[in-house]
């Protein structure tokens, strides 16, 4: 469990950004992952006073505040209408409903954990993040950026007809995933994302949906790099990447052959 000396609930994003520039301060998000460490913080910055806890749909895009919970994403009718069961599939293995009622989108993305279901899922869609300092940054670039002291305020998710399917493998239900995979298609253009490699999720674009699941599986096995940890070997992850990519592509084809 971490320790902290102060707690702040800033009234503006600018104030949150200024507070976060001090080393030793941290944004708390839902607090679920933070509490797993033993760090000593000076000030915990709570963004819950900034109105960043809602999902808005307008002008062909969704805007999701950083304090939107994973449970909100699972239950949001607008997201379900646009992307079917994608966000349910993404979230359903993440600990339990009680955890997902607190875990935030912003916390999940800003940490850019290798095992993040959220990062894998959103990389399959067309997203940008709004940062208090750096402004709007495409999610694939943000995913690769080194950690800094900027504040993630919102995620913009374009509703452009892209469809996606999500797959993951876990040793036990509610554990951290061994491998995550999302496949998405815009017309015939197919994208495969693999995460928990165990490094950060990354995307492979330029595939064709018409080439079918086995071609996607082969591409996933060949393109991505994999590593070993206590959950799986690199060799097994490479094998799983093909299996999950093929499953995700089959699901995309079933919806719109």
């Amino acid at each position: 469990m971490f320790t902290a000396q102060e707690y702040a609930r800033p009234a503006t994003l600018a104030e949150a950004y200024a507070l976060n520039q001090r080393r030793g301060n941290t944004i708390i998000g839902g607090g679920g992952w933070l509490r797993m460490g033993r760090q000593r913080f000076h000030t915990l910055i709570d963004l819950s006073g900034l109105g960043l806890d809602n999902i808005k749909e307008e002008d062909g895009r969704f805007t999701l505040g950083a304090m939107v919970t994973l449970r909100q994403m699972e239950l949001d009718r607008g997201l379900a209408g646009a992307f079917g069961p994608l966000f349910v599939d993404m979230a359903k293995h993440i600990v339990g409903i009680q955890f997902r009622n607190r875990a935030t989108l912003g916390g999940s993305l800003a940490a850019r954990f290798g095992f993040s279901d959220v990062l894998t899922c959103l990389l399959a869609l067309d997203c940008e993040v709004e940062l208090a300092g750096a402004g709007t940054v495409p999610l694939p670039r943000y995913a690769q950026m080194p950690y800094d002291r900027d504040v993630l305020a919102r995620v913009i998710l374009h509703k452009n007809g892209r469809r996606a399917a999500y797959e993951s493998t876990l040793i036990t239900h509610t554990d951290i995933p061994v491998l995550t995979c999302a496949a998405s298609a815009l017309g015939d253009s197919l994208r495969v994302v693999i995460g928990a490699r165990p490094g950060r999720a990354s995307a492979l674009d330029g595939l064709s949906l018409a080439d079918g699941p086995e071609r996607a599986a082969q591409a996933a096995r060949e393109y991505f790099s994999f590593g070993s940890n206590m959950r799986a070997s690199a060799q097994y992850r490479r094998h799983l990447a093909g299996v999950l990519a093929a499953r995700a592509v089959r699901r995309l084809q079933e919806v719109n052959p």
Partner: protein
Amino acid sequence: MNITVTINGTRHTGEVLPDLPLLDFLRGQGCLSVKRGCETSNCGLCTVWLDGAPVLSCGVLAVQADGRAITTLEGLQEEAAQFGAFLADEGGEQCGFCAPGLIMTVLAMARELDDPGEDEIRAYLAGNLCRCSGYQSQLRAIQKYLAWRKEER
């Protein structure tokens, strides 16, 4: 920091450290149904409702609950006893340590989901671990409780 929360309908004000988990604050206020389990946000034992939604009180800071309404098992005695009777009938309460968290989640589910099937029940309860029951007896108790509740309405 000074916080004011409503616990089971009663306002409480207290001075808390910024890193005090809600779990410890609630136990300090006499809510001893809130049990300390894994403390890694995994087991579901410390489940309480925050503004009506089930959360893990080991993973929420007391300062984050400032101004909000908390419900613990102490505030749901009648319903807890009703469901507890089904747990007992089905052999779903063995060592009993997980029961407070399980009951809090089941009662939240009963409010949130309309006539859930087995898969929905299993998904909703995935965050409540039990070392004794193997979950089958709990599942039977939940299904029978929900059916009884539907008839009662």
